[in-house]
Every structure is written in C-alpha cells, then in structure tokens.
C-alpha cells in the first residue's frame, strides 16, 4: 500500500551529493558513522524532494532508468522505508 504523503530529507543532516553517490551524516546521532549511498540508492535519495510521494518517487526513478515503474515499485518503496527507519527521510 502506498501513501500520498510526500517524503523529505530530515533537517538534521549534512550531505554531499556527487555524481551517482550521496554521503550523509546524521547530526542528531553524531556517534553513527557516515552513510554512503551509491547507484540506485543515490537516485532514490535524489528523487526525495519534499514534494514527491511514494508513487512519484518510484516514477521518477523509473524514468531515470527508463524502466516500467511496475518493475521497480516494490524495491523503491522498500528502500524508502529503510531510509525512514534510519531517520534520513520522513513524511512531510
């Protein structure tokens, strides 16, 4: 089941976005090591913009990779939940 509430990056982070990779540190948990997202994970992160919901993020990533959204929806949504569990993104 998808939600129509958009995703956003949490505010308490520093992040550096490069070509096909994103490095993130969570300022609320300074003892945690930095996180590095690469490849499709970085694409999903970049698709989170505070306006896109589950379906819009999946569509954006599908468009980037030129694949049908049905092929990737489940994994994109699963990874969004993973990012949320790591407190890197949240629903707006």
């Amino acid at each position: 089941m998808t939600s129509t509430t958009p995703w956003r990056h949490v505010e308490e982070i520093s992040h550096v976005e490069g070509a096909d990779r994103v490095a993130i540190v969570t300022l609320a948990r300074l003892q945690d090591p930095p996180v590095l997202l690469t490849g499709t994970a970085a694409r999903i992160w970049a698709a989170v913009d505070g306006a896109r919901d589950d379906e819009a993020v999946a569509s954006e990533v599908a468009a980037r990779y030129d694949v049908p959204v049905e092929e990737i929806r489940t994994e994109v949504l699963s990874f969004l939940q993973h990012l949320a569990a790591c407190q890197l993104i949240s629903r707006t």
Partner: protein
Amino acid sequence: MSPDGAAGSSVLDLAEAVPLLHGVVDEVARRHGVRVLFIKGPALARQRLRDAHASIDVDVLVDPAELERLRRGLEELGWAVRVPNTSATVLPQHSVTYAHPLWPCEIDLHDRFPGFLADPQATFETLWSYRTQVDVAGRPVPCPQPAPHAAIACLHALRDADSAVNRDELARLIDVMVATFDDAQRDQLVDVARRTGAEGTLWPVLQALGVDDDTSGSTPHDLTDWRIRTSSTGVRSIGWVMELRRTPVRRWPAILLRAILLTEAEIRDAQPNAAPGAWGLLRARIRRLGWGLRDVPRAVRIIRGAGADRRDEVPGR
C-alpha cells in the same frame, strides 16, 4: 533493481568527508556552547578566495577559552589526538590534530593562528566580530567574512613563503582581493590587521593592495620569531635551536635529550617507512639526528640574520 544501501564510511572520499565533517564539528560546538569559525578549505572556497579543490582536513579556529570543552566533545565521539606534539617550534603551537578511525580526514583545532601576534583571545574576538556563515554540505557554518578570512589565508601562505605553491597561492589571493574587494573590505582588512597584531606580518599584502595605512607596517609586536619562521621552511632543527636560545644553559641537557629522543609516535609519523620494532626505531632516530645536525648551521645563520639575540631574550642571565 536492488538499491545499494548504507556503505561503510571508509569508502568516503575527501571531497565528501571534509564538508560532512564541518557539519559534525559545528554540531558538537553548538551542543557544548563553544564558538568556532571554520577557516580555509570549503569555507574559503565558497567565498571564492581559493579554488574548489578537495581539502585534506577540517580547520577550525576555536574560542581559546573554550578549546578544552570542544576537545572533550570530540573525544566523546571517538576522536583522538593523532600524534601528541613534543617537538620544539619557532612559533607557539597553534593547533592540535584529531583523527578518527571511521573518517578519512582529520580535524585541526586552532586556538590561535600564526601571524596574528596579538593575544589569541583578543584575536579570536576580533575575528568573531567579523563572522558570517557559508553553506557547507547543506548546513550553514560560521566562518570569518571574506576580508579577515583572506588575512588568514595570506598568513598561511606567508608562513612558508619559500614554497612555490605558497607563493602562487599568495599571488592568487592578492589578485582576487585586488579585483573584488571594495573600499569597505580593504578598511576591514586594515582594521583586522591592527586589532590582531598582524599589521607587520600582513604588511606585504597590505602594500600589494595599496591600502591607505599610515603605519607603514610598523607594529608594537616583535616580528623576530615570525621572520625566522617564514625564512626557515624545511630547516628541521630550527625549533630546537630557538628553544635552546630561549633557555638558560643549565637546562640545555634536558632539551637536547628531548630533541634527540622525541617520542616514538612523532618519529614514526615523520618516517612512516621506518622498520617496526626497537631496531627500526633506533635507525629512524639516528636518521633524524643526522638530518637535524646537518641543518644546525643553517638554522643558526637564519636566527642570527633575523637579529635574535639569546642574551636579550633570557632576562636575568
């Protein structure tokens, strides 16, 4: 599709780690109520005072009165002094370097900056009064405004002015300042120089900018040590010779013993290829002693040339 997940920080490169670490240090400073200014590196690049090449460490100027609090805050997160420094130096020790096993870059905490000859606390207050913020890794972090930041960058380049890289960097900085600074920023530069005791050390820069400074580089501060430091890049024994000159003869044996032995951590840091074990350490110490002794005549010439006189520097001798 299988999204890549969180990877270990060991694969962070410097272009990622250094900006991220600005956010970490800023957060630690905030939590502990310590005033900090990020200097050089990404902050200077954001102000277009240097190229945007990757830095190798994070430089932080810390309120001298609160340095220990910030150190404790970082140490609670697993940061540790990389190699405690016991070497003699021409100018007072100005920074301590912290390292962390999960980060590929280091943090240099400065409680003063070489070339600002006024009291470190007064210098920090002046620079703090001229602070601004720049965005680094998506976070606003405090740093000096362009004019005082340029002063810091110039002093950094002037300190090792024999180096071609530093000469180029200084020339580039001056070009940028000439091209972009307005009258208010030039006045600010002069004000910072006067209030931080840098009117003499920064005089080549002030001259190049043609600022209207009626001091003509005169300063109430003694420039002797600065002159010695800026003309002794690569002269390994200069700090020890200076320390001997500052010290009564009866205390020389202890200094000489310290100079010869140094700590194993410092020896191995300077000679990372030294063989492990006691024999490797001994050979490294002998190598270092040879280099140091070879430099002594040059060190003495530089010190004499700068006009330093040991007898004048040790009252009551």
